């Protein structure tokens, strides 16, 4: 029992670290990207059709690549960004690259749900494009964006299991190394149970927060 705990605790912390840092950068990059995707559309507040098309294509390309390929491809890039291409920190780079386009699409969908009349009313009140983004689009879509963040977190958790390839560690990695390669079924089960608990808690918190924010 103690040896399982000794294995689980560091892996659990690695997983939380990977998800936390990845999620932070994913939101930091994905939120503005999603906003740009919406506002640069035709008939929105800052129509820039070519930029829109360009970003959309890039996002589609990244999203077409399987996570495992992305992690290998991104190795050299990770070394450039965080100084190493292996280890938990290095794993964060491909996680962010994989999750950002996904999250950007989710933000895009959330913002599109807002009735165009509300944006129009804001324009009629003399709001600047920045004011419309910060005071109208984001607050109106916040409940839906929170749900999107929840989905993204759980997605990153899934990707993080693959991060074992670059020595990323974490629960997924532990489950494969001990549970699969060394036939330690008890470790495998413990990892899976822990992963299920993380997902359940994340989804529960996300749902409650989204419900609280939804005034519609």
């Amino acid at each position, binding site marked *: 029992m103690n040896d399982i705990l000794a294995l689980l605790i560091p892996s659990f912390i690695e997983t939380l670290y990977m998800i936390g840092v990845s999620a932070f950068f994913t939101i930091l990059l994905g939120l503005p990207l999603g906003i740009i995707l919406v506002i640069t559309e035709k008939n929105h507040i800052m129509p820039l059709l070519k930029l829109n098309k360009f970003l959309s294509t890039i996002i589609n390309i990244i999203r077409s690549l399987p996570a495992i390929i992305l992690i290998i491809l991104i190795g050299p890039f990770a070394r450039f960004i965080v100084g190493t291409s292996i280890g938990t920190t290095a794993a964060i780079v491909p996680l962010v690259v994989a999750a950002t386009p996904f999250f950007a699409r989710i933000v895009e969908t959330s913002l599109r749900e807002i*009735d165009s*009349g*509300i944006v*129009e*009313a*804001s*324009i*009629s*009140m*003399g*709001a*600047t494009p920045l*004011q419309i983004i910060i*005071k*109208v689009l984001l*607050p*109106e879509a*916040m*409940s839906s964006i929170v749900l999107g963040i929840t989905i993204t977190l759980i997605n990153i958790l899934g990707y993080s299991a693959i991060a074992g390839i670059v020595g990323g560690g974490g629960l997924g990695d532990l489950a494969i190394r001990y549970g699969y390669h060394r036939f330690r079924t008890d470790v495998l089960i413990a990892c899976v149970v822990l992963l299920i608990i993380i997902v359940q808690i994340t989804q529960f918190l996300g749902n409650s927060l989204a419900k609280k*924010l939804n*005034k*519609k």
Partner: protein
Amino acid sequence: MIRLKNLTKIYKKGKHEVTALKNINLEVSKGSIHGIIGLSGAGKSSLIRCINRLEEPTSGEIWIDGINLMSLNNKNLRNARKRMGMIFQGFNLLWSKTVFDNIAFPLKLSRLPEAQIKERVISLLELVELSDKANSYPSQLSGGQKQRVGIARALANEPNILLCDEATSALDPKTTKQILTLLKSINQSLGITVIVVTHEMDVIKEICDYVTILEGGEIIEEGNTIDVFSKPSNEITKHFVESPNYLPKDLVDDITMSLSFMKGSAKIPIISKLIKEFDIDVNILSGQIEYIQNEPLGKLTIGISNISDNLDDIISYFESNNVKVEVITNE
């Protein structure tokens, strides 16, 4: 004063061009309530949305208090928009904000100090009689209450002009009446010029001093509401203002007349005098009195049987009494 000069709006859909507005010239005098009415597709919504450039006109000029809105850059246009309130058919309130914050929203955009915002919102809440709903969310309000929030929000920046784009079209008749009464009282107490776009004739009758009738992107008739209603000169306008008056064929006498009583003539016993003076028999076929801005407008269809050759005298008798006559032939 608002003056539109040669305003044209053309929508391009691929290779197709749709002309929504053709060379519109329109003047709206300060402090009036001006109605714009037309069937759907007539261009009335495009027209009102061009006034604050929500819709960019293809060509033309928009003069408001001596400034041509078409000549303004983005920043100055935003400032000009703050002097115009707008309300919408779908209310367009922010779902995530309380009634209080919805009304405070335009003031926050203008970066007013918090204390001033609070004071202003409280007085606006009183004006629209929603003080008890300050902390409710729009989803908890009825349609009429939502539109009153919309009106309070539109008035927050103390505008000179209020644009109403089908503002009552989503409301039931009773609520419509309440909103119209509110608009009228705002117009009178604050002296705000109100432009109302609608497809409902009753809205025009109820509150508008002037009316412009649009058809196919062009103005086909305009004038004082009571004049346009009592003697519409255009065929399409007639169709609009007159409730269709179908008479069964066997009811139509030798001479059937449609009479419109205006300018106080609805209060004089004209028919009774007519019978005595010309010694004829009058058969009343249909009749109604409408009130346009509290002025009565009577419509009466009569049949005259034992008429001699004094038809012209009868017509001039009516006309001297401010009654418009139209002789309906039996066909």
